[in-house]
């Protein structure tokens, strides 16, 4: 009789919830689509879309609640004590909560958009949930195999989602490119993991840490390749070039989702890898991250300047933000990591908001793409223009917004760890970024409207997401350590960020 392993299913509860959600949606789609004989095709589609999005939102809310409870409880739980693959700890539960929240907002954002683009298929939400479950697996993983499993589970649905608008050439190109290059990066990552396994004789982070020999070239090659694999996911220069093409081609709602969640998940996993597995290699990695970060900030910001397509511009802006986030990795301090987590939250809201406005402008099968089409938006859509201006200011890092507070924390960490030159590059390039971010408010407020192709009314889902994002951007920018809420009292996001990474520093 083989003794049954002492599994702790509650560790995987958030992920199981999301997985169940995705299956429910798949089945629901199949069952509900029979209704078209009764209700007619048009009605059924929108009905199904709403119901399925509601289901997705419900399950994400459950996940958010479950991970929130786990975070409040604190402590570290391991899924299988004999072979620790996944663990539920303050870090994973906090990041899971952030992921669930952003996925929830993305779903709410998609409902009307999908029917506007006539791609209202129920699989959309199932795919989002599947990829979300992959992300959650990845951030909870303490084993290379589990990391890879999560990474693939995250990536494959997103490849599909990128090509979701299958009648559009751009969307197909986007999916294919992402898939090709992504597979390539996965292969590199996997090769690196194999080498690491060969060196240390185990795949768990613990084994890696114990068996790591910094003088062993094989270990170094493995480490380098793993870094490359992640650098692809978070689009560090020079592994970034897929980003603008994919972000541009994918449907805007998908771009909103992937630009935020993939980055959060990949950065969180990198933090965990560095803190738990590669601690001894801090010094040599620091230089690499330093250079990558500087390159990413410079190239991302400069390339964003010349973009005429708003989605491409936001793609380069997200590259630049990845560069700022990378500064936190360079510092390697608790302050830097907690600043990264805070920055990721701020980035989630402002980027989702910015893409949300783009989504809300999509009309009759057309995405809103040209930056020039924002001209005079303040006249025709004052509310949207106001929140868009807010998100742009926040992305640029103007004080009073979440973007400023995030940058401030990151730069503060850089100062305290002595990375002054990186800080100088970051600040200078922030100034450059103001140019392309403020172009949009300038167009919206100081030019006459010319483009009539925008949608003229906003859906309730989009409106709710934009309001939430705008309020969050303001609240995190004005009082990050006591965000006022009506229901739950004041939230101390800074403290949460500290607590979530504190576990890596024995806190």
């Amino acid at each position, binding site marked *: 009789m083989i003794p049954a392993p002492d599994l702790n299913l509650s560790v995987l509860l958030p992920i199981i919830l999301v997985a169940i959600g995705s299956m429910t949606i798949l089945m629901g789609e199949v069952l509900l689509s029979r209704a078209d004989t009764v209700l007619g095709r048009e009605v059924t589609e929108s009905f199904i879309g709403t119901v399925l999005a509601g289901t997705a939102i419900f399950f994400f809310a459950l996940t958010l609640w479950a991970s929130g409870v786990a975070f409040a409880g604190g402590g570290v739980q391991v899924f299988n004590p004999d072979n620790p693959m996944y663990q539920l700890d303050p870090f994973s539960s906090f990041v899971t909560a952030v992921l669930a929240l952003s996925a929830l907002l993305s779903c709410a954002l998609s409902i009307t958009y999908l029917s506007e683009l006539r791609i209202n298929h129920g699989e959309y939400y199932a795919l989002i949930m599947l990829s979300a479950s992959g992300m959650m697996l990845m951030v909870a993983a303490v084993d290379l195999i589990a990391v890879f499993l999560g990474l693939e589970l995250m990536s494959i649905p997103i490849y599909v989602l990128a090509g979701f608008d299958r009648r559009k050439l751009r969307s197909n190109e986007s999916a*294919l*490119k992402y898939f*090709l*290059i992504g597979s*390539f*990066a996965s292969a*590199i990552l996997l090769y690196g993991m194999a080498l690491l396994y060969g060196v240390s004789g185990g795949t768990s982070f613990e084994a890696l840490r114990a068996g790591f020999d910094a003088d062993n*070239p094989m270990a*170094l*090659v493995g*480490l*380098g*390749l793993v*870094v*490359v694999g992640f*650098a*692809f996911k978070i689009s560090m*220069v*020079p*592994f970034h*070039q*897929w980003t*603008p*093409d994919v972000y541009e081609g994918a449907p805007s709602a998908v771009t909103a989702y992937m630009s935020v969640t993939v980055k959060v998940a990949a950065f969180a996993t990198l933090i965990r890898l560095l803190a738990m597995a590669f601690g001894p290699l801090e010094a*040599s990695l620091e*230089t*690499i991250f330093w250079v990558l970060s500087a390159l990413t900030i410079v*190239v991302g910001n*400069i*390339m964003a*300047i*010349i973009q005429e397509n708003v989605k491409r511009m936001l793609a380069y802006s997200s590259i630049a933000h990845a560069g700022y986030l990378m500064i936190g990795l360079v510092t390697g301090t608790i302050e830097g990591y907690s600043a990264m987590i805070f920055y990721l939250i701020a980035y989630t809201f402002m980027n989702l908001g910015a893409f949300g406005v783009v989504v809300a402008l999509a009309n009759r099968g057309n995405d809103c793409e040209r930056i020039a089409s924002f001209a005079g938006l303040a006249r025709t859509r004052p509310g949207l223009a106001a929140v868009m201006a807010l998100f742009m200011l926040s992305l640029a890092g103007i004080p009073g917004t979440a973007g400023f507070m995030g940058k401030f924390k990151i730069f503060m960490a850089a100062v305290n760890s002595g990375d002054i030159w990186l800080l100088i590059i970051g600040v200078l390039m922030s100034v*450059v970024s103001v*140019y392309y971010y403020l172009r949009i408010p300038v167009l919206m407020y100081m030019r006459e409207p010319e483009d009539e192709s925008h949608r003229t009314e906003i859906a309730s889902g989009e409106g709710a997401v934009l309001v939430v994002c705008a309020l969050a951007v303001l609240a995190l920018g004005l009082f990050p350590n006591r965000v006022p809420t009506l229901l739950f009292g004041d939230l101390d996001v800074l403290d949460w960020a500290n607590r979530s990474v504190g576990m890596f520093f024995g806190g």
Partner: protein
Amino acid sequence: MVDVGTESDLLRWIPLLPLLVAAYHGISIGVLRRPTVPRVAAIFSCAAVLLSFVLACIALRDLLALPPDSRMLVDDIYTWIGAGIGSRALSAEVSFQLDPLSAVMTLVVTFVGSMIHIYSIGYMEDDHRDDKGTQRFFCYLNLFTFSMLVLVLGDNLVLMFLGWEGVGLCSYLLIGFWYSDSWNAYCGSKAFIVNRIGDFGFLIGLFLLFNALSEIGHPAVSFAGIQAHFDGIVEMTIAVPAWMPFAPEWQLVNVIGLCFFLGACGKSAQIPLYVWLPDAMAGPTPVSALIHAATMVTAGVYMVCRLSFLYAAAPEASAVIAWTGAITALVAATIAITQNDIKKVLAYSTVSQLGYMFLAAGCGGYTAAIFHLGTHAFFKGLLFLAAGAVILAMHHEQDMRKMGGLWRRLRMTRWVFFAGVYAIAGFPPFSGFFSKDEILVAAWASHVPGHTWLYGIGMLTAGLTAFYMFRLWYLTFCGESRVPSDVLSHVKDPNGFVVNPLWVLAFFSVTAGLVGLPQIWGDLIGIEESNSLANFLKPVFAAGEPHHIAHSTEYWMAFWAVAIALSGTALAWLLYIKKPGVPDRIAATLSGLYRTLLNKYYIDELYDAVIVRPLVVFSDRVLYRIVDAGVIDGIGANGTAYGIRAVAANGLKYAQSGLAQNYIFFMIVGAVAIVGYLLR
């Protein structure tokens, strides 16, 4: 710890009421763009200032109820600026204090202020140059009152500076009130810029003082705090290079005192910064009366008196103040003799009278300075308002050469004007007589080098004052009318809003001297402690030990003062009534001197040539065209921007080919670089 006074929540409302009404006006014109009916707006403003006056009276009653040595009301609202730690901690409170000095100032500001507000209702009624003009005017006026009250009530130098800047701003706004005339806008700017020079001195003084106090471990900006630890910094010195005068060391308090005095020179129009005040007459006449005669320009005097403990320890700085004041008084009086614009005469007279106040303050006669400040506020406010009434009656004619003989026409204005002229000329028992006498006594008794000369200059100026004021009087009201007949028939007293406040002010111009009745006169009529103002203010001021002056000497001084005023009057009568042709002949004979005086010693032209023009040329040719447009904009801002765009557009763009295989190539290059670095 510093002794704090009695708490009183009342104080904050004294400045706050005008601020609230100013904010209301601002919102209704600026934000809502729906101006209130002018008359209603004006009444709001007047009510606010009157209410402030009532509150000030109540506060005064509370103050008088306290024992004389601890007469201090405080209203600490919140910490405005908190910065630094330890011995460098700066904590500036928004905190008001009412001690006897503030009380006198507050009463003067709110009382004269409310009179002038009421007067403005009538004066601004026919102003149709701008549809929201009236409300804008009252908005500025209330904002000014607020700032002035903050200035006099603030319990620390930083808050005082806030008020100081606030009144400067309002002065600028109101001088240029009719901004569509570019000359008015120019005058406003001139006032503002000249004041900024003084403010610079104020700030430097503030920094030096704070720095010195931090060095002894007691950083403070509140007056009480500074005074409590002031002894510690009296002995400090600053080392200066050998080529500077009085090297190698300057006493710190003297430097601080002079810096603050530079600020006072700007605000109170003393040499060398007096040039803005005559031009400030471009503003509406109530503004001239309120800001440029009665209240704002006396802020410098108030500051010197407020810092009397500092100046008492800085004899050299005090001497500079006294001499500057005396010379300003004399120079301004000589210019006033030749001016033909009725408001210009009054403006130079104001400069001259302010010189008197500084003369007193520099000689240690702080009480005399404040006394004269108060009486001057009444009679100069009155004179300006009365002049405004004349100007209104003459349909905005200000040249005295086109007046004359108005005595029969302005039947009410003539009396109040006469009261004002008598008061400023210093005839007993009008208020100006007592306050001017006090100053002359203080000058005579002081230890300032050359104090007898100061007395002499004061006497001479008193004579000149009587002369030019009666010249004004005769030219305007007496003699043959030189008014064109079609205008003359319309000349009549303005409406009640204009005239009634004049009566009130006239009453006080005549009687205000009695609150500071010098003891020698009190002895004559059998009142003990007759100088109630001096007794009231005594706890505030640093006590000096002036020379003792016998009572008989004081009587003689009073006699000569009256005598010289009389002779000035007589001379004016002789020249402008008895033999009207003589002044022109004198002017022709002494044409050089006359033209110099008429052109105000060419000081404006001198400043223009020596300071303004070189500065403008330098800033345009060098700073703007070369440094700013060329280097900073051209190379710095635009150059970088174009450079970065060019890099992005021409360089990096080609790396982004859109082909997946190229992307993978870059990835491999990156991966090789990373692995290569790790394996180095």
